[in-house]
């Protein structure tokens, strides 16, 4: 059941990315390019996804545990520390350069587009390298 739910959630997530335009770096970069070729479509991404999830989570959390897991695995960190601020700042710089973010890029792998394969290879290498350095 876990696997079926996870595949279904992945498909729906990927469809959402493809339908909304989050998969397209041109659209993502134009969302941020208020001074140039601005395309505000993705304002709906933050707003629409947030409101849907906000309501849905409220209902889900009425339960004491998930349907097919022993507990809710929620992040336990609550500190707003330097690492969070530096990490988020760095992420934004990379997103502004490449136009792909991890969630936007993974569904594009399914189209076989060359640029996304470069992005994913570098992303995975950088995640692993950062984790290794952190573990030292």
């Amino acid at each position, binding site marked *: 059941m876990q696997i079926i739910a996870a595949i279904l959630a992945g498909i*729906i997530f990927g469809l959402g990315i*493809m339908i909304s335009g989050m998969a397209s*770096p041109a659209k993502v970069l134009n969302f941020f390019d208020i001074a140039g070729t601005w395309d505000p479509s*993705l304002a709906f991404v933050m707003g629409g996804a947030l409101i*849907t999830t906000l309501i849905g989570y409220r*209902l889900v959390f009425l339960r004491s545990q998930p349907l097919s897991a022993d507990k809710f695995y929620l992040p336990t960190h609550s500190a707003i520390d330097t690492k969070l601020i530096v990490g988020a700042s760095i992420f934004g710089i990379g997103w502004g350069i490449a136009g792909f973010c991890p969630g936007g890029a993974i569904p594009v792998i399914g189209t076989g587009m060359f640029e996304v394969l470069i992005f994913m290879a570098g992303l*995975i290498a950088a995640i692993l390298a950062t984790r290794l350095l952190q573990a030292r």
Partner: protein
Amino acid sequence: MATTFTPYASLIGVVLIGFSAIILMLFLGRIAGVTGILAGMLLPGSPADWLWRAAFIAGMIAAPTIATMANIPTQPIQVPVEAPAIAVGCAIVGVGVTLGAGCTSGHGVCGLARLSARSLTATLIFMATTAITVYVIRHIVGG
């Protein structure tokens, strides 16, 4: 490169992203944060932990094919960025999302939906640095 304003398609798409996050929380009790799911798949804790992550990622990758088969209209994917810039950008993204423990989905959707102050901080910061980076590249360096 100009793109078309697509409020309805974008709204439908993102409501689906919200549904996906709700399904993952309802059944598995997990945050639909793509960075966290991917990183946990690369460095898995246990076989069962790896399997649901791999299933989610596989579903994401299958989505374009399913959209084509089911005639679901999707936005064209246009990449106005040269390969070397993508190579630099993805490395920076990888470092940032690992240190910041999340990206657009984990902080920007799931974290905000949990009313997490950490996620709100992260989201405001990365939205700002992305906008600044795009401005610098397009209007200062490239302008």
